[in-house]
């Protein structure tokens, strides 16, 4: 024991080795879990992408424009932007990449919300849970995103699935935080009202807390989606397809032009997704 401590003191604590050992262990012991995840998630991604690609781009563009028109309160701005932006991406020959990226963002965001909202609720209900989860969230957000790619590859090899895994870790925290915040911000009198009339905990959550916190939670989800989108370039380093891969390959070959166009594509997608999630949120108010 003492010798080990002395050794650590002189030669450094083997954190890196420990982490590696842990990752190896997890990869080995949990492969029964990771393999099916990888397979099903991969299939699901392919299924989504393939089906979206079956639809003629014109129809998708029209649908997006229509949704944009009604979502923004029958204003033309967002609809026109969607048509022009998506057409430009199609025109530049990036349509398939766009769909790939969209599928990645969509699924990563969905998973983030599915994981993040319940964790946020747990956090809002228990002080202990909050004090444990908060530093973990800080860790998840401040650790450089590239670092997640390494275990992601170890668990799921390369492709879209590890991309989703890395995005999930990077993009979930805002949803958790905003859900927690939203529920904690519900006025005390409303909570008392629901309790005074004899609500169960679940009724209180579903009928009062979540509806009241909805706007805040949606703001968190909006952040999550944006972060997931920002991960597409990084995820492309481990083989996730899409616009990110174009940016990456342009970078590797020093093709300024291609890189710029692919980058513009990401920006257009980001603006459309951002406005969509925001107006879905503000529609009620």
């Amino acid at each position, binding site marked *: 024991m003492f010798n080990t401590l002395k050794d650590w003191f002189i030669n450094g604590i083997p954190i890196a080795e420990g982490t590696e050992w842990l990752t190896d262990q997890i990869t080995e012991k949990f492969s029964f879990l990771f393999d099916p995840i990888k397979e099903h998630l991969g299939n699901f991604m392919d299924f989504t992408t393939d089906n979206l690609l079956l639809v003629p781009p014109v129809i998708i563009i029209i649908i997006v424009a229509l949704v944009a028109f009604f979502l923004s309160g029958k204003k033309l701005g967002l609809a026109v932007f969607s048509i022009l932006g998506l057409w430009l991406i199609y025109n530049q020959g990036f349509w398939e990449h766009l769909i790939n990226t969209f599928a990645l963002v969509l699924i990563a965001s969905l998973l983030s919300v599915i994981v993040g909202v319940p964790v946020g609720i747990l956090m809002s209900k228990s002080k202990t849970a909050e004090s444990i989860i908060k530093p973990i969230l800080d860790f998840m957000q401040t650790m450089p995103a590239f670092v997640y790619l390494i275990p992601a590859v170890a668990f799921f090899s390369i492709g879209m699935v590890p991309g989703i895994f890395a995005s999930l870790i990077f993009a979930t925290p805002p949803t958790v935080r905003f859900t927690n915040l939203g529920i904690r911000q519900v006025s005390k009198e409303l909570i008392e009202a629901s309790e005074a*009339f004899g609500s169960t905990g679940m009724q209180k959550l579903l009928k009062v807390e979540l509806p009241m916190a909805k706007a805040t939670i949606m703001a968190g989800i909006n952040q999550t989606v944006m972060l997931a989108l920002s991960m597409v370039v990084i995820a492309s380093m481990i083989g996730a397809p899409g616009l990110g891969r174009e940016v990456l390959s342009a970078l590797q070959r020093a093709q300024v032009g291609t890189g710029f166009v692919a980058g513009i594509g990401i920006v257009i997608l980001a603006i459309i997704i951002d406005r969509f999630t925001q107006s879905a949120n503000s529609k009620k108010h």
Partner: protein
Amino acid sequence: MPIIEAKNLTKVFGKNPKQALELLEQGFSKEEILKKTGSTVGVNRASFSVEPGEIFVIMGLSGSGKSTLVRLINRLIEPTEGSILINGQDLAKMDKKALRQVRREKLGMVFQRFALFPNRTVLQNTEFGLEIQKVSKEERTKKATEALKMVGLGGYLDQQPNQLSGGMQQRVGLARALANDPQILLMDEAFSALDPLIRKDMQDELIDLQSTMKKTIIFITHDLDEALRIGDRIALMKDGTIVQIGTPEEILMNPANDYVERFVEDVDRTKVLTAEHIMKRPETINTDKHGPRVALERMKEAGISSILAVDSKRNLKGYVTADDASEAKKKDIRDISEILRTDIKQVEKGTSMHEIFTIINGSPIPTAVVEDGRLVGIIVRGAVIAALAGDSEVNYENV
């Protein structure tokens, strides 16, 4: 049997309630305990009981623990010690499920800032209590609509709460509490956020509602006028302790200590005191038996210049002045009815002093106080002024 009975109900906020409880037993004050233990005494051994159909007002300034006390009654705040019996069942010992049941069936609550759900319509808000009891949609809509009609909002079912004025919002809050048909209504400063005119209307309506529906109402307020207006009995709180419980008259007339006395000093007594409180026992003559001679004698004896006349059943007949009586004596008139004057001012026993003012003004003879036409007392001007001056010698033994 009382419907609500609180025994020794105590709430200590903070990390060390046990120690604080011990210090309370030893008679330390709230400040001393805060200094010694860091714990705040919210409510200190409150005991009271409320009869069915009563409006029981808990009043005190902010920080007196009144809002904590009302939340102890439905256990929104867990009591540190003591028991709270509702229909004889101890709420403090109940498990969560039983507690929920009591809250659903017996206790309705109305909040200071209304606490309406902004994402629900007026009707949906009113349905809330029934909804969480899983009452069918049809029935809860029916009951909620009835409750809304009762508070005069039958036409606003589909409005959003924030489209309504404060007074109307609180009516929705009241309707929401009534929709469950609970025996007990807890009202936490329910009218404090409303402007004075609307507040007065709401107070009147609450009294009306209570007289038809016979709910038991626990009403929290910091406004003594409000407490005196609507309360059957009032509990006055200071620093978490109930310092006095009594009817409005008892509180006004017999303040238990300096604190209560200072509290009631500024009350507009004209609204609370009635003819009954300031009337005096009248000197009378009996028109069936007595003549001018007796009248004159009695006036001399009492040193007054006029005397009230009643018949054998004490029905007020009028009054006789000393001048008339001595005139009649000289002329040897025996029948008192010849000199009886009937232009006397009279008020009912329950008339407030506020109204008595205008009646008594400019009248040289005392005002008669009657109950069902029978004379029960007289009011002389001096008594009115004495009562206004806060003279506790006013004869509250009549109460």
